[in-house]
């Protein structure tokens, strides 16, 4: 049985939007974007958004719901993702390592089929939408291993179909240039100029307790069931080198230092961690406003 975390990072894009509007920001960079549904929200409300992350599947999803302005998935195209197509050779054993541990044989076969099918889509936009829809089906399966009697048995293709169709609804244009990139935090910050920088930095050593629903999907996308999240973060700023408190503080300070040209920096943290973060932010910027609507949702808004 895999453990699914109860603590989940909460980003409220509607609240972030309110903050950005209050500070007159019409563009934002998020170098720790994670699953970029919040950037999709901001895009829908006319903000130019730029995101970055080290995990490739987050970036691919960003290409579907952040960069992509037009491309959608039609019914026939969704059908070509969720089911095995005649005449195509599939690597059905690709996720056999997960069989019996996390998933049934049928589910592992489908994971292999989906892995191959999404790589045959016509555009990055479609690929991103499909990855997000399939991820939701994957999360459903993982949850069902914990609550087998509470949740419905839904055929894999039907489940994937409904979720992929849903992602298509989020495609929207904002007549601005929006980007996502797979790179580390400092590169993202330096690659873009925007009115605001939104930082939701990972907690210290968080990569060691990453949510299975996140790292396993990167493993799926890479086609490597033995992939580990430590691998992805190995040489990154918030990887093992930032394991102790002083190193972690230095990492945060270096991010804020690199962000000097941004007029507004919004740092999201929690009531529990604000003690560590606030001093660093105040050291970097003279004016800091704290908005703390909830213990798990505290914003430090730093201006020059």
């Amino acid at each position, binding site marked *: 049985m895999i453990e*699914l*975390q*109860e*603590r*989940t*990072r*909460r*980003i*409220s*894009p*509607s*609240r972030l*939007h*309110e903050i950005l509007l209050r500070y007159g920001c019409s563009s934002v960079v998020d170098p720790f974007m994670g*699953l970029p*549904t*919040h950037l*999709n*929200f901001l895009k*829908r409300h006319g903000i130019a958004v730029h995101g970055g992350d080290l995990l490739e599947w987050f970036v691919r999803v960003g290409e579907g719901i952040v960069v992509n302005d037009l491309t959608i998935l039609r019914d026939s195209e969704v059908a070509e993702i969720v089911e095995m197509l005649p005449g195509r050779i599939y690597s059905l054993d690709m996720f056999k390592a997960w069989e019996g541990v996390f998933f049934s044989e049928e589910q592992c076969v489908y994971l292999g089929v989906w892995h191959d099918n999404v790589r045959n889509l016509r555009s990055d936009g479609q690929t991103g939408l499909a990855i997000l829809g399939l991820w*939701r089906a994957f*999360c*459903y399966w993982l*949850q*069902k291993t*914990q*609550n087998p009697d*509470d*949740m*419905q048995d839904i055929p894999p293709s039907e489940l994937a179909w409904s*979720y992929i169709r*849903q992602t298509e*609804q989020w495609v*929207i244009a904002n007549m601005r240039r929006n980007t996502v990139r797979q790179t580390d935090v400092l590169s993202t910050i330096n690659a873009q100029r925007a009115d605001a920088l939104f930082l939701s930095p990972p907690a210290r050593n968080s990569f060691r307790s990453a949510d299975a629903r996140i790292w396993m999907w990167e493993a799926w996308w890479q086609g490597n069931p033995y992939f580990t999240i430590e691998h992805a973060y190995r040489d990154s700023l918030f990887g093992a080198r930032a394991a102790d408190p002083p190193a972690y503080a230095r990492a945060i300070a270096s991010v804020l230092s690199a962000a000097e040209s941004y007029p507004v920096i919004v740092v999201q943290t929690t009531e529990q961690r604000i003690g560590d973060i606030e001093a660093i932010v105040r050291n970097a910027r003279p004016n800091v406003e704290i908005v703390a*609507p*909830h213990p*798990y949702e505290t914003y430090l808004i730093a201006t020059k």
Partner: protein
Amino acid sequence: MKLMTLFQDTVGDPRTAAARLAGVLGLYGAVGDAACGNPPGFAAQKAATAVSLASVAGIDGADRDALYFAGVLHAIGAVGNAAYRKGERLSERMARMETWDVPAQGARVCLEIAALPEQTADFVRWQAECWDGTGYPDQLRWHGIPAPAVILSLADATARSGDPEEALASIALQAGRAFGPDTSRIFAMWLHSFGGEVETAEPPLDVLRADDAATAALLDLVANRVDAHNGVSGRWQRVARLTDLAAESLGLSARDRESLAIAVRLYGAGDIGSRDDGESSFDPLARLAIDERAAHALAAAALLDGNDALAGAAPILRARAEWFDGTGKPNALFKNAIPMGAAILSAAIAYEALEHKDRIDTAAGTQFDPKVVRAILEAARSRA
């Protein structure tokens, strides 16, 4: 000219002030429901169900009180939302996206109402989030959705279904998708404990930081948002300037004048649910739109059903499509049987809508009481 100050009679009485504020909040909730097409009384039912479910889910104290008001105000974001606004012509796709913003817009309004418990805004904001992250507006997922917001979502499903057993089946079907995998257990426990019966919940008045000036300002806010929604911004103030003066010159009592002032702020809410331009596209002196006007009058009065704090305005709203000669609707009231407030309101509405103001004279004695027409004309002259 300064408009009449509302709620002068309860200054210094916190309990009455809180009850009055709760009445205005209830009204706002009803207007929100009307704007997005929910049946009358839906908000009150949702609030009562949420409070009842909260007792089973172990939510109490401040969260439970906030949950009540979040239930009442759940749809206020629909007032002014582009998906429902009068005259908007959006594609189905764009309209759907606009509806995703209703909870966040509602939360913003809740934040403006200082008297509400703090948590109310966030419960409204996250009431439509889904466990699997496909909800709106924030696409929160899993345990990132606060438990009271989940309860509000359950209450919504229950109130919409009407039959608790059916609701249980649909919630169980959505386990792991719209709702958490074990959410249906909370609902089942509630169903077994209470049999699906929901008693009317009394508003927790003690938690409201009420004062009458703020309540009056809130009523003005409702009126402003209703007019903006209907594409007639500032209309109620123009009408109120006439009715305030006319009511004074015709010698209405302070209580009747206050009821009229409330009715002026609310009559526009009667056609908030219709998507076309409504009665404003008709000549206010023509009989052509009388059915529509009467329907809007009844709808506006129905918003005050069970609302003791504002009940005095209901007869005025209900009778504002009656004609002085007894040929009006819905009850064909004749001359003095029409409440004076309603006679003043209907004449003021027509006067405000007329392009050539003098034409109102032609309706004196038929549609309007001649002495009311004179008072309105005097009010208009003195205003000028």
